């Protein structure tokens, strides 16, 4: 995943994360060049979520460092450049779709927010319920609004934790088209996943976590697509 000649979007250097004395992440080091889409594979408990939270600056590594475009993730200017989609939708039930997006557009300091918000609502097919409370939304609508929130500030680096797992078909379609568009514009994407086809198809690179360590990192191979269990078997997991 490293190539010195290309712009390095994300660099992880010697990251360890301990829970007490237990190392949940062990000496993680990799670089993601700008424009690549990385699928982060691994079983439950392998450390995918922990790693993504550290990349997003939601958690501090016990040792090591993470830089995004050369700057620390906990800096405000860096956080403006990343978009994070976690397990929850991160939206307020008591606010309307528009109010939710306006809140985040204010926090991200987006210029001309109303226009951008309407654009995102359009993209996620939520214009009709622009002023409806999220509480009243169906599951699929909530998920699409969550996707709209992540892309709202046009992030340069996207960090997605199991993005396809909880989505319905329509939301997956929306997310895929947005991701493709981001990829075409040279944006960097890191997403964790079990072994889902959707993620592997989108990926240019694959990294595999096993017991808190990176056991495989490299470009996505065709055999991974043909046989999604291939990587897992290679590393002795079923």
């Amino acid at each position: 995943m490293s190539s010195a000649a290309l712009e390095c979007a994300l660099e992880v250097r010697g990251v360890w994360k301990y829970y007490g004395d237990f190392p949940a992440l062990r000496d993680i080091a990799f670089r993601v060049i700008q424009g690549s889409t990385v699928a982060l594979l691994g079983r439950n408990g392998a450390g995918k979520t922990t790693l993504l939270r550290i990349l997003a600056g939601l958690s501090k590594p016990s040792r090591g460092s993470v830089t995004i475009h050369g700057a620390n993730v906990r800096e405000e200017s860096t956080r403006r450049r990343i978009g994070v989609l976690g397990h929850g939708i991160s939206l307020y039930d008591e606010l309307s779709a528009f109010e939710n997006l306006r809140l985040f557009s204010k926090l991200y300091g987006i210029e001309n927010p109303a226009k951008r918000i309407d654009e995102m609502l359009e993209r996620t097919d939520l214009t009709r319920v622009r002023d409806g409370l999220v509480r009243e939304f169906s599951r699929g609508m909530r998920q699409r609004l969550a996707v709209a929130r992540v892309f709202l500030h046009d992030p340069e680096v996207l960090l997605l934790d199991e993005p396809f797992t909880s989505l319905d078909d329509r939301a997956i379609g929306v997310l895929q088209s947005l991701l493709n568009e981001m990829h075409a514009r040279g944006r960097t994407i890191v997403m964790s996943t079990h072994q889902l086809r959707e993620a592997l198809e989108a990926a240019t690179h694959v990294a595999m976590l096993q017991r808190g360590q990176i056991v495989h990192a490299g470009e996505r191979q065709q055999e991974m697509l043909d046989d999604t269990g291939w990587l897992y078997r290679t590393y002795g997991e079923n």
Partner: protein
Amino acid sequence: MREPIKYVLLTASLGLLLWSLYKIGYVLPLEANVAAYQILYLHVPSFFAAFTGFFLGLFASGIYLATGNFKYDSFAAGANEVALMFATAGLASGMIWARYAWGIWWTWDARLSSMLLCWLVYVGYLFLRKSVEEPTQRARLSAVLSIFGCVNVAFVYKSIEWYRTQHPSPVLSFRNGGDHMGPGLEAPIWWNWLALVCLGVVIAMVRMQQGEMSREIDALRRQAHSY
């Protein structure tokens, strides 16, 4: 290295305690008409030792937050726990003294209530430690609470100087020959303080080792669950 230090401190502490017990019991010309006056030689040093412990807890917590080294978390836990024990001893001995001197077990005097307050703050600290299972989160949150608690202790201590109180004025005024106590009678208080601090450090060290072990057990359990 740690083991000999523990025994040295323990011996020193016990020796000092015995020596000052002898002095208090047989040597010092304590007024016989003040019943149970001797208990003050435990009462006051207990609180001094408690404050020492809270401050050590504060420093250890600060170092933990700065370095992330769990040793300091375990030490802070031990120090605060031992300090809470001394504060309990101080409160109990104070109540006994109050029963003899004033005829009541408890009075809502500013100094007493403020000590009770500090005691409650650190009971909250122990609650917090008990209720968080994940060691890193526990260390982080309890370090923050320890800092808040110690600042509160200092704040409370400062604020009671502003109250009118029926309590003997702060012990440090013994220096000026305040209250009943002559300067010659003051020394055992400081020796006892030293003895209790030594004892406290030994106990805190034992608790620290226990903390390290339980963290190791926790890590092994996590490892077992992850494979």
